[in-house]
C-alpha cells in the first residue's frame, strides 16, 4: 500500500535534518564540554 505523500515527506524531512543535526550536535556538545572543563 502506498503511503500518503505528505507523510513520506515528513519522514524524509525528519531523517535528513537528523542526518546533519546529529553530527552538528556532537560537535557543539564536545566544544561546550571543553569550555566548561577549562573554566571549572
Amino acid at each position, binding site marked *: 500500500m502506498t503511503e500518503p*505523500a*505528505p507523510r513520506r*515527506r515528513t519522514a*524524509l*524531512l525528519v531523517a*535528513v*535534518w537528523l*542526518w*546533519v543535526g546529529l*553530527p*552538528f550536535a*556532537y*560537535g*557543539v556538545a*564536545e*566544544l*561546550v564540554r*571543553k*569550555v566548561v*572543563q*577549562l*573554566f571549572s
Partner: protein
Amino acid sequence: MTFPALSFLDRSHSIAPPGWSRWLVPPAALSIHLAIGQVYAWSVFKAPLEESLGLSGTQSALPFQLGIVMLGLSAAFGGTVVERRGPRWAMFVAATCFSAGFCVSALGVASGQYWLVVVGYGVIGGVGLGIGYISPVSTLIKWFPDRPGMATGIAIMGFGGGALIASPWSSQMLSSFGTGTGGIATTFLVHGLAYGAFMLVGVLLVRVPPEGWRPPGAPSGAAGRPARRGMITTADVSANNAIRTPQFWLLWVVLCLNVTAGIGILEKAAPMITEFFAETSAPVGVGAAAGFVGLLSLTNMIGRFVWSSTSDVIGRRNIYRVYLGVGAALYLVIALATNSSKIVFVLSAMLIISFYGGGFATIPAYLKDLFGTYQVGAIHGRLLTAWSTAGVLGPLIVNAIADSQEAAGRQGPALYTTSLFIMAGLLIAGFVANELVRPVHPRFHEPAGGSTRTEAVSGEAVSGKEAGSR
C-alpha cells in the same frame, strides 16, 4: 563526450516535483558545508604528520594553505560553471574531489610520499572546498527569496560547525588507529569514505525550484520578494557584468575589511588574552585561554545564523552598519579598557567574532539584493577573493605589530593596542564603503524578462534611473 549514467546530475533532472518542501534544501546544503568545514581542523593532523614523516611546521601546514588558496581560486573561476550545470552537479564534484583528496593523501602517507598529501588534500580537496562552498548558495536563495539571509546563514554556519565535528572526531580516530604512518593513512581513508557518503546525501537531496515557483503565502507576481526596507532589485546582473560595477568592489572592500579585523583577534586569541592579563591579579592560564578560543568558535558559528537571519528583518545595509560600526566601537573599547576588566574584554571579543561570522553569512543575500538571483553563486565565488586577501592581511598586521612592539621592550596590552586601533580604523573604512553602496545601474541588467526595476523603500534606495545619475 557525455555520460548518460551521470545525466541525473544535470540541472534539468534536479527540478523539484510538485509539493517538494523547501525545508529539505538546507540539510542538503549542510551536508556539504559540515563536511568541507573540516578544513579548519587540519591542525589536528599537523603534529602526527611532523613526527611520522619528519616534517617542519611550515611543511605540515602546506596542504591546508594550498587548500584555502584553491578554495578561493575554484570559487572565483568555477562559479559560472556551477551556475550553468546546477547545484547537484556542483555538489557531486565537491564530494568527489573532497573525498578523493583524502584518499590520495592516505596513499601519500602510507607510501611516505608527502607530495601526494599536498596535491591530494591541498589541490584536489581544495577544488572540492571551493566548488562545495558556493554550490548551494544560489539554490538556497531561490528557495528562500523571502528569507535569503537565514537560508545562507544556515549553510555558512555549517562551514563553521564542520571544524567542531572534525576536531574531536579526527582526534579520536588518531587515538584509535595510532599516529604512525599506518594510523594516519587509515584515518585519512576513513575520512575520505565517510565524508564522501555524508556529502552524497546532499547530492541526492538537492532540488532547484520549478520555473515560477513562489514560497507559500507570497503575493502573486512578487516572486516572494520581501517588500521591506533596503535595496532589493528584481533585475538580474551576470557575473561578468557584476565585477564591472562599483557595488561589487565596495562589497569586496566591506568583506575584506570585516574579515581582516575579525581574523586579527581570531588568529591571536589565546596569546592575546594571556598577555593582556599577565600583569593583573587574575592572570589567564593556558587552559582558560583555550576555553576563550572555544567560546570565540561558538560565537563565530552562532553569529553566522543569528545576524544573517536578522538581516532579513532590518536590511542588509543596516546589518553591515552594525558589524562595522559597533565592531569598530568594540575594538576601541578593548584598546582603551586594556586589562581593567576581563568580562569587558571577553564579551567585546565574542561580539566582534560574531560580527565576523555574520559578515560571511550575510554577503550572499546582500549580493542577491543588488544583483538578483541569476548568477548570484558565481558572483559570490568571485567575491571570496576578498576572504583570501584578508586571510593574509589580518594575521600579517597583528603579528608584525606585536613583534615590533615586543622588540621595543613593550609587554601586556601595549603589544596589541596599535593593532586594535588599526582594526577599528579598517572597520570604519568598511563602514564608509558600505554607505557608498547604491542600486546597480540598469545598463548592467540582463535584458531578459524586461522586469528591470529597483525597489525603493524607506527613502533609502532610488529608482535605477536615478541611481545611475549619481
